[in-house]
Each structure stands twice: as C-alpha cells, then as structure tokens.
C-alpha cells in the first residue's frame, strides 16, 4: 500500500508565484522526511529534508512545513521560477533503525512554472 500519499498530481504556477505540494503519511515511526526534485532523464536529487522535532525548515526559496499531529508535511516553493519545473517527490523513512534507510516515496507532483 502507498505509505506516503502526495497531492496534487500536477501543478501549474505562474513565474513568481508560490507552489505548494502536500504529503500525508500513516506510519508514526517515520522520523525523516526528505523532498526530492527530478528532472526528465535524471535520478531524484535531494532538495530539502526535515525531522519531526521541528515544524518548519527553510532553505532559500524552499520551505517544508511539518504537522506531526496531522501526519502531514508540505513543500512550499516561493517565487517559483521556470527552472523549478520538474517532478517533486516527498518521501519518508525510519532513520534511526538497524538495516536499510529505504525511502518510501510519494507518487510525485509534476510542477510547471509558466514564464
């Protein structure tokens, strides 16, 4: 079953606007929530990540908001640029455990920023 649910499937934003992508999870053992950016023909690249002990993390134009009680987190892209056009994946993992830190990915959001 899908352990991380992501919406919307696609998003079109005007240049300079705010892009918002939402994710929800069920497994309360998850303790690390990264966002990945993927361009066509490339592998996903880590964009920003958050742990559940904070409610927000900001890096440049990218902000993660985290709501532990609702089991939801979101990515906000401020001042969206055409170069941000890509597919974005949220993910979750159980960081502090033995064995793999395999990532559980959402289904992805295709973002298009119109000039």
């Amino acid at each position, binding site marked *: 079953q899908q352990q*991380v649910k*992501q919406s919307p499937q696609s998003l079109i934003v005007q240049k300079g606007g705010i892009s918002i992508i939402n994710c929800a999870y069920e497994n309360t053992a998850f303790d690390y929530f990264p966002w990945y950016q993927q361009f066509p*023909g*490339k*592998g*996903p*690249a*880590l964009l920003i990540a958050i742990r559940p002990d904070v409610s927000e993390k900001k890096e440049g134009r990218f902000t993660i908001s985290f709501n532990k009680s609702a089991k939801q987190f979101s990515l906000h892209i401020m001042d969206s640029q055409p170069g941000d056009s890509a597919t974005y*994946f949220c*993910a979750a993992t159980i*960081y502090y455990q033995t*064995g*793999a*830190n*395999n*990532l*559980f*990915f*959402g*289904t*992805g959001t295709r973002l298009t920023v119109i000039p």
Partner: protein
Amino acid sequence: GAGVSQTPSNKVTEKGKYVELRCDPISGHTALYWYRQSLGQGPEFLIYFQGTGAADDSGLPNDRFFAVRPEGSVSTLKIQRTERGDSAVYLCASSLSREDEQFFGPGTRLTVL
C-alpha cells in the same frame, strides 16, 4: 566529480529474456540501494547493500530478481525470465554510510516487449 553511474541507460528486451543492469556507486560509498520507478510513480525500494552483503532484500518482487555486489562497489541487478510488467526505470543510489544522504544515478530504462 563522478556521481552514481548506471549502464545501460536504456535496455529493450523480449519477454522471457535475462537482463543485467549495472550500477557504479560513488567511490567510497558503502551503502547501495536499488529502486524501481514505474511510469508516473515514485521510486519503490528493491534491495539494500551494506558493503558486499544484501542487508535487506525485502523489496524484491519475486525470485526472478536478484542483485549482487561482490567487491562492495559495483552492483548488478539481475532479472530472469523478464515479463512486460518489469518495464520501468531502475534506479541505483549510494550513500557514504547508512545514515547519509542517498545520491541517485540517472537510472536504466528497461522495456520488455
């Protein structure tokens, strides 16, 4: 600097054939992951290596899938008796250690006709 490389970039095969997909991780990275990304979906975990050993293969869909990493560096994902449903992009990722950021390769697009 050299990132994770995967070969071939594209592989077209016929149903029932055997294929091998190769991953060259970043030098010095001890952890290596294989994921499968179907069209319009996020990557799904297949197998994790720590050094030479497969520490977690719980994501392999069935016994047609097998992976090795004999010297703790290059890894090969092997698929026997391919089926059309195996068509996907197979991604490899490596990290310095289990706790570190995973760096993904560009993937191998497998098409089974």
